[in-house]
C-alpha cells in the first residue's frame, strides 16, 4: 500500500448581491433605482459591504497574505461574483486593492462563474454564456488572470453543465460531493463527469467534489457549542485530514469566504483557527496545498460520476428548492427570464444591466419559505422581514422595469409587455 497524504484544495466563494430596496407599488413608474437603499436596514448594500469588509474580508485578507508569505507551499482559490467586484470598485477600492495584492502573489487561483451570480444556465444558455464571458473579462481586467476552472452559482451542477464547460475548454469544474451522486465512493479523489468519450488527443474536463463534511465543520459548525467536537482546533482538524491517508488523494474544502469573520466570529476563534491551519497541515512533510487547476494536473481520474439532475450545495436536499421551491419564487423567475428577448432587442445597456442584476440568485433565496417558521439559516440570511416581503418588492420592481422596457421598445416591434402577473 502506498502511504500518501492527501492534498488540500481550498476554494472560497466571495459574493455580495445587489439587494433590492423596499420598493412599493406606489414607486412603480417613478423610481427606477432598485439597489440604492440608504436606510439602516440590511438592504443597504454599501453599509453591508462596509460591515462585512471590516469584520471579515479585510482581516481575512491580511491573514491570508501573511500565511502566503510564511508558508511557501500554501495556496488557495477564490471565486468572485461580478456584482461583488462591481460593488468593490464603487464602494471600497481599498478592499479591491487588498484582494489584488493576494492574487499578485501568484499563488491564488481565480475561478470562473457568472458575473451576476445567477442560475441562468438553467433558464437561458445564451444569457448564461454572456454572463460568464462578462465575468471572465472582468477578472482579466482587474487581475490579469484567465480562469481555467469553472464553478456555477450555488455550486449548481449537472452533466449538461459539465458538457458545456468541457466544450468551452475549462480544465475542471466544481460540484458538491453529495452522497447520492457518489454512492459508496469518496469525494477525496478526482473524477470525470459522465459526458461521453473525449475526442482523440483532447483532454476531458475533470470534476472536483466538495468534501462537505469537513468543509461544513468549518463553515457551519465551527462555533456550535452543542457540537460534540466543539471547540474545533487546527490540530484536531488536521488529525481528521491525516486520518484520510491512503483513502484519498485530495480534500476539497469549499466554502463562503464570509465564513471567516462574518458567519463565524473572530470572538469564537475563527481567525486563530485559520492562522494555525496551514502550519499544522504542513507539519507532515507529505502534506501540501493545491489549487483546483494544480489538483487536476497532479492526480489521475479515478472514476466517472453521473449527475443527470441538478445538485447544489444548499440545504439537506442539495437541490434548487431553496431558489425554486415555491410559487412566488417560480413566478418571479418566470417573469424575469421571459423578458430576455425584449430586453436584448432594446440594445439598452442600463436596461440590460438592471435586468441581469434582477437575476442574482439571492433575490430568490430570500423568497424561500422552507422551514421559514422554524427560524433557521434561511431567516438568518434574509434581509427582508419575510420571504413574502422580498417577493413583493421584487415584483413591484419588475413591473417598473417592464414599464421602462415598454417605453424603450416603442417602435421596436418588441410586442406587448404585460405589466401585471
Amino acid at each position, binding site marked *: 500500500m502506498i502511504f500518501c497524504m492527501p492534498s488540500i484544495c481550498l476554494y472560497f466563494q466571495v459574493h455580495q448581491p445587489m439587494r433590492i430596496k423596499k420598493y412599493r407599488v406606489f414607486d412603480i413608474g417613478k423610481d427606477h433605482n432598485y439597489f440604492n437603499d440608504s436606510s439602516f436596514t440590511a438592504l443597504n448594500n454599501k453599509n453591508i459591504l462596509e460591515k462585512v469588509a471590516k469584520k471579515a474580508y479585510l482581516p481575512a485578507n491580511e491573514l491570508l497574505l501573511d500565511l502566503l508569505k510564511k508558508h511557501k507551499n500554501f495556496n488557495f482559490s477564490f471565486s468572485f461574483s461580478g456584482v461583488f467586484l462591481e460593488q468593490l470598485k464603487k464602494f471600497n477600492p481599498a478592499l479591491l486593492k487588498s484582494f489584488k495584492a493576494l492574487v499578485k502573489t501568484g499563488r491564488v487561483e481565480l475561478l470562473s462563474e457568472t458575473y451576476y451570480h445567477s442560475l441562468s444556465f438553467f433558464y437561458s444558455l445564451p444569457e448564461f454564456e454572456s454572463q460568464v464571458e462578462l465575468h471572465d473579462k472582468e477578472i482579466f481586467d482587474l487581475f490579469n488572470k484567465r480562469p481555467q476552472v469553472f464553478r456555477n452559482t450555488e455550486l449548481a451542477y449537472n452533466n449538461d453543465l459539465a458538457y458545456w464547460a468541457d466544450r468551452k475548454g475549462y480544465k475542471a469544474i466544481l460540484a458538491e460531493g453529495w452522497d447520492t451522486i457518489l454512492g459508496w465512493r469518496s469525494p477525496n479523489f478526482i473524477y470525470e463527469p459522465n459526458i461521453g468519450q473525449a475526442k482523440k488527443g483532447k483532454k476531458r474536463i475533470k470534476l472536483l467534489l466538495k468534501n462537505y463534511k469537513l468543509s461544513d465543520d468549518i463553515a457551519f459548525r465551527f462555533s456550535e457549542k452543542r457540537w460534540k467536537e466543539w471547540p474545533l482546533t487546527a490540530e484536531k482538524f488536521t488529525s481528521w485530514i491525516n486520518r484520510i491517508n491512503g483513502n484519498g488523494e485530495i480534500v476539497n474544502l469549499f466554502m463562503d469566504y464570509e465564513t471567516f469573520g462574518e458567519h463565524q466570529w473572530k470572538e469564537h476563534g475563527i481567525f486563530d483557527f485559520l492562522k494555525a491551519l496551514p502550519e499544522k497541515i504542513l507539519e507532515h512533510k507529505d502534506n501540501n496545498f493545491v489549487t483546483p487547476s494544480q489538483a487536476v494536473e497532479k492526480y489521475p481520474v479515478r472514476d466517472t460520476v453521473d449527475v443527470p439532475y441538478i445538485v447544489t450545495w444548499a440545504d439537506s436536499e442539495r437541490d434548487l428548492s431553496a431558489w425554486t421551491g*415555491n410559487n412566488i419564487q417560480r*413566478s418571479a423567475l418566470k417573469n424575469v427570464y421571459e423578458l430576455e428577448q425584449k430586453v436584448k432587442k432594446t440594445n439598452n445597456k442600463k436596461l440590460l444591466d438592471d435586468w441581469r442584476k434582477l437575476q442574482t440568485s439571492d433575490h430568490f433565496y430570500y423568497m424561500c419559505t422552507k422551514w421559514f417558521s422554524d427560524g433557521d439559516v434561511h431567516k438568518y440570511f434574509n434581509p427582508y422581514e419575510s420571504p413574502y416581503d422580498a417577493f413583493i418588492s421584487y415584483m413591484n420592481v419588475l413591473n417598473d422595469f417592464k414599464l421602462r422596457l415598454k417605453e424603450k421598445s416603442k417602435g421596436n416591434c418588441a410586442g406587448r409587455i404585460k405589466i401585471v402577473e
Partner: protein
Amino acid sequence: MVGWELPPLNSGGLGEACYGLAKALSKKGVTINFILPYNLNIKSDFMNIMYANEKVSGKKILGPYLTYSQWLKAVKSGSVGFHDYISQVLEYAENIKDLAKKERADIIHMHDWLTFPAGMMAQDVMSKPLVAHVHATEYDRSGGGFLNGNVFRIEKDGLERSDRIIPVGGRVGKTLVSKYGIDHKKINVVYNGVEDPQKPCITPALLNLKKLGYKIVLFLGRITLQKGPDYFVKAAKIVSDYYPKAVFVVTGSGDMQTQMICEATNLGVVDKFIFTGFLRGVEKDSIYQAADVYVMPSISEPFGITALEAVKNRTPVIVSKQSGVSEVLQNSLKVDFWDVEEMANKIIAVLKYKSLPKDLRRESVREIVNLTWDRSADEVLKVYKQLI
C-alpha cells in the same frame, strides 16, 4: 373557572376562548365548574355551568369590551347607570360567595378583569391557588388612549394576587411586566387555539361580485378603536386608487361604525364598502372564504383569533405587528397599524400577484396545524400542575 360570557351569548373573542379552552381541558379529564355572573340559560355537555346569581338578569349585561370613553358616553346618554359598569363586576363578586362555600375546586381560574373581583372573592373563601388568564388589558382596550383608573386598579389587584398569570401572547405578557409591575416569573404565555370551520360555502351575493372580477378585502371584528377600523378605511382609499376592482367588506359592529362610514364617504370610497353587520358560525366562515385577503389592522391585539380563523378558511392574512398572533403566524404579511401606505402596498400585492396568496395560503394552513385548543390545554395543565 370564573367567566363573564359564553357563546352563543358572547360579544367577541373572550367567550369563544373560554369555551374552547374549557372544552379541551375537560377532554383531558379536568372537571370544570364554569361560573357566570347571571343565569344565561346556557347548556353544556362537558362542564358544569353555574350562575353566581340564579335569577335571570333583568338588566342589560355589559359587554366585556367597553372602553372608558364608550362608558362615559353610555353614562351621559343615560342608557347605563353611573355605577353599572363597575357595580356589575362587584355584584358578581358578592354573589359568588355562596357558590364558593358550597362547591369544591383545586384551582380558581379567572378570565380578564371583569371576573377578577369574583375570582379573588372565591379565593378568600376557598383558599385555593388563583390563576389569571389575560385576554386583554385596559391598555389594549383603550388603544393607548384614556385608561379607566378603576379598571386598571382591579386588574392590578387581581394580577398581584394571582399565583400564576396566563397572557394570550408575548406582547401582552410584556405589558403586564412593564405597566402593571408584575414579576415575569409568574407569567406563562399560552396562545389561543382555533377550531376548523364548520362548512365551506360561499354566500351568493359575494360570489356574484367575484364573478365580475372584483376582489374582496375583509375587515372582521368589533368596529372599535382597538381594532383600527379608521386605518382600514385610509388603506382602502389608497388601494382603490391603484386597484379599482377592490371591494371592502366590513363584518362586525361597534361604536365606530358611523365614523367609519363618514370617513369612507369623505375619502370618496364609500361605494366600495359593504357592511354586513355581526356574523357568527357558518355565515362568518363563508365571508372569510369569500375574501381574497383578510386585514387585521388592530392598534393593540393581545392575540387576534380572527387571523387564525381566516387561515382556517384558507384566506391569506395581513396582521398588524401590534398583535399577539403575529408572534405565531410567520406566514402572514405584517404591517404597523399606522403605516396605511404599507398596508395598501401589501393588500395590492396580494390582489395583483397571484402566486403570493397561493403560497401564503399553503404555508399558513400548514403552519397553524398545531395551534389547537388541545395544545393550549396542555400548556394550561402544565401551569396547574405547578400549583397543585
